[in-house]
């Protein structure tokens, strides 16, 4: 049935019936969907309604009675039952009912509203917030203009397989729309993001809402996780709940993530134990902090090389078996490669050469055995191409990698003999040496251009590390450089699940700044020191996030990696210039952020944030960071603008 043709009694009629003719009658107050179906037999007959009576305005009824509640109050009951602690939103009238319920009925606590200045910021905040401790957040937005702003960030979360719970307001019933609500009204709001969300619904009644709201949560949180959308009709939010309407908050029952089939898991264990050079590659593997603990146990049991591709914090950066800094060498040497939730298996074992004529070649040995364990095999969507190139593997286990690690560890332990263990130890010693050498080389590499101005990114990372290393820190954003080998990953000691939060997912710029705020909010309750290495181009998408951090007293140390350009793009254009061989000195045109230079300290100060800069002398950085840290430790954001080299 099309929504526009459905017959729906308006607010006025409901109020009239409820208070006049049929006090307490369940029939009238029943959800709309039920009305369309057969009515229960033993109910009182419906009142005789004339057209005039139905349309009449009960002008005297302007406020909720003390014993009445609004539809969105019940929605808040359901959201509270799901454990939401924060809703991120830029205010919008199509969800004004829910907004009021959150702050008054719900007491603005669990969920608490976080005021955002752009819907893209709201979603990116929720995205990174989830990655800190595995709890999704809600985002409220207009079903039309709000979602249009939010869509890129939803796409990022989709590509990153992160649950974001998007709540959209919309006025379905054309007969009651105010003028602006026509612009904010849409038949199928979720359509524009349906290719990159996992599920959506537009409930017609509060019972329908309750079930869909819980279902949406379950769907979003079941691996492979992804954003979901609930479209909430404005009238359903705003109208009073009919007295006698039986509304139940459904119980949340989370499905257990699927574990690999036993025979297949044993096969992988046999391959790993027999291998000369097994390599474990993890990308979106660690769903929970336990993921890292399990991967350490598996790697140590086998003394196997581990590569952490960095979409999650999978493995301690300084673990002796961590070969991430020499990933390609490890892949080249491998005879068995086990991919754990890899977004890009093909790219792990092949290389694409990006020149005028593109070419590719396999980098893994031709006879290397490839295994994949991923829920990616269980779910795929068309249109957007984030699924990457098809990689043939020897054994594909369609299951959740973290959930599959315990039986895999057990199976490996059962198979290890004393002989194999001796070999494992020799292998482990070699890997330890190789990872130490790579780490040492990184330290030495950081010394080059140490005194240079603009400041080298290595120097910037070293200076930040020197300040935070004694604290319980979390790097909430630093993602534009190569994820596996960026400077913090090379130089800092990452060994806790919340210290590294991966990246944008879809590569959509503008994620970094809001992600830092969302993650810092989640870190706040744990008293952690949140640090962001913030690129300038990213900040300029929606700098209103600085205000959100200030307003909500979110402690966050923002260190600008201000190279005054969209630097990645300069390199791309330079490649084109060289390849086309007709001018190589204009590659920067169109991608620089100079003339005038942006003063990020002033920008932050204008929103009430302690800020210093632009810092061009690397020796000024340490003292500025110390002053900023003192502010952050008092519970507020602070920003240090550092003029840096490229990356």
């Amino acid at each position, binding site marked *: 049935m099309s929504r526009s043709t459905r017959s729906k009694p308006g607010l006025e009629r409901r109020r009239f019936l409820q208070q006049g003719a049929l006090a307490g009658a369940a029939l009238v107050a029943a959800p709309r969907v039920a009305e369309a179906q057969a009515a229960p037999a033993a109910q009182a007959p419906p009142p005789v309604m004339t057209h005039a009576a139905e349309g009449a305005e009960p002008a005297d009824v302007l406020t909720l009675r003390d014993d009445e509640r609004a539809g969105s109050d019940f929605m808040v009951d359901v959201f509270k039952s799901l454990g939401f602690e924060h809703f991120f939103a830029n205010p919008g009238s199509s969800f004004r009912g829910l907004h009021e319920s959150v702050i008054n009925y719900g007491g603005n606590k669990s969920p608490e509203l976080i005021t955002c200045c752009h819907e893209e910021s709201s979603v990116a905040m929720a995205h990174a917030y989830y990655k800190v401790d595995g709890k999704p957040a809600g985002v409220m937005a207009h079903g039309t203009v709000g979602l249009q702003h939010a869509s890129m960030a939803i796409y990022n979360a989709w590509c990153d397989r992160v649950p974001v719970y998007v709540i959209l307001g919309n006025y379905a019933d054309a007969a009651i729309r105010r003028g602006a609500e026509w612009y904010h009204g849409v038949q199928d709001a979720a359509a524009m993001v349906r290719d990159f969300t996992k599920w959506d619904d537009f409930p017609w009644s509060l019972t329908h809402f309750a079930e869909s709201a819980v279902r949406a949560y379950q769907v979003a949180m079941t691996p492979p996780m992804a954003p979901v959308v609930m479209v909430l009709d404005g009238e359903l939010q705003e109208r009073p709940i009919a007295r006698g309407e039986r509304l139940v908050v459904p119980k949340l029952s989370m499905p257990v993530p699927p574990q690999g089939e036993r025979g297949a898991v044993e096969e992988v264990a046999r391959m790993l134990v027999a291998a000369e050079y097994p390599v474990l590659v993890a990308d979106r593997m660690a769903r929970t902090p336990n993921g890292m603990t399990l991967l350490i146990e598996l790697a140590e049991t086998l003394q196997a090389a581990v590569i952490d591709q960095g979409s999650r914090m999978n493995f301690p950066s300084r673990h002796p078996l961590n070969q991430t800094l020499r990933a390609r*060498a490890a892949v080249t040497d491998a005879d068995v490669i086990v991919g754990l939730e890899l977004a890009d298996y093909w790219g792990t074992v092949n290389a694409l050469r990006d020149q005028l004529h593109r070419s590719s070649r396999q980098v893994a040995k031709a006879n290397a055995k490839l295994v994949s364990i991923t829920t990616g095999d269980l779910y795929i969507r068309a249109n957007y191409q984030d699924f990457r190139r098809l990689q043939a593997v020897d054994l594909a286990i369609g299951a959740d990698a973290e959930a599959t690690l315990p039986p895999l560890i057990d199976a490996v332990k059962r198979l290890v003999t004393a002989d194999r263990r001796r070999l494992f130890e020799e292998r482990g010693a070699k890997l330890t040496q190789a990872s130490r*050498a790579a780490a040492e080389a990184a*330290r030495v590499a950081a010394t080059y251009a140490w005194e240079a101005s*603009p400041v080298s990114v290595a120097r910037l990372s070293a200076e930040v590390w020197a300040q935070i290393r004694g604290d319980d820190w979390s790097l909430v954003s630093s993602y534009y450089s190569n994820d596996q080998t960026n400077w913090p990953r090379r130089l800092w000691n990452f060994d806790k699940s919340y210290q590294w939060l991966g990246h944008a997912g879809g590569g959509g710029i503008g994620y970094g700044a809001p992600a830092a705020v969302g993650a810092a909010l989640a870190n706040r309750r744990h008293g952690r020191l949140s640090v962001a290495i913030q690129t300038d181009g990213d900040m300029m998408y929606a700098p209103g996030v600085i205000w959100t951090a200030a307003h909500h007293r979110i402690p966050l140390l923002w260190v600008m990696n201000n190279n005054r350009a969209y630097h990645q793009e300069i*390199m791309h254009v330079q490649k084109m210039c060289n390849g086309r061989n007709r*001018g190589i000195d204009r590659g920067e045109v169109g991608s620089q952020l100079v003339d005038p230079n942006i003063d990020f300290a002033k920008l932050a100060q204008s929103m009430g944030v302690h800020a210093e800069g632009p810092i061009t002398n690397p020796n000024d950085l*340490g003292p500025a960071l110390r002053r900023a840290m003192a502010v952050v430790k008092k519970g507020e954001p602070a920003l240090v603008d550092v003029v840096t080299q490229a*990356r």
Partner: protein
Amino acid sequence: MSEMKVLVAVVLLALAGPPLERSRLAAEPALRTQESRPGAAASQQPSRRGPGVPAAPLGRVDAGGVLFKKVGCYQCHGNEAQGGLSGPRIGPNLFPSTRFFEYLRKPTGEMPPYTVKVLSDQDIADIYAWVQARPRPPAVNTLPQLAR
């Protein structure tokens, strides 16, 4: 720094320096700076020159510094040629000018080519001179910020 002249020889491909395992380099530019570089001997002296091969232009340090920025080397290799995440460190004292010339003209990995049409031999000689003149970094253990 005052102008320093470095003699650079243009040498044909046949006289290329020590062979490099290009395939791996190409695939993993980010790791280039981190692994020790076999055969990356320091070389400031003129390279060997075959019979009939013209002498390379003299490199001019200051001009090289301007070019390093202007033609985009800094983008991938860092402002001081120190290496970044997109391109490895390329000096000072990493390889002879022969390799430098050879690689710019015919890169085998991700680096974009620089042809004679857009970058003359003199330009390359200048850039090489500037790269060779970069200051040595402080010893890593003297930098408390880099303490493990």
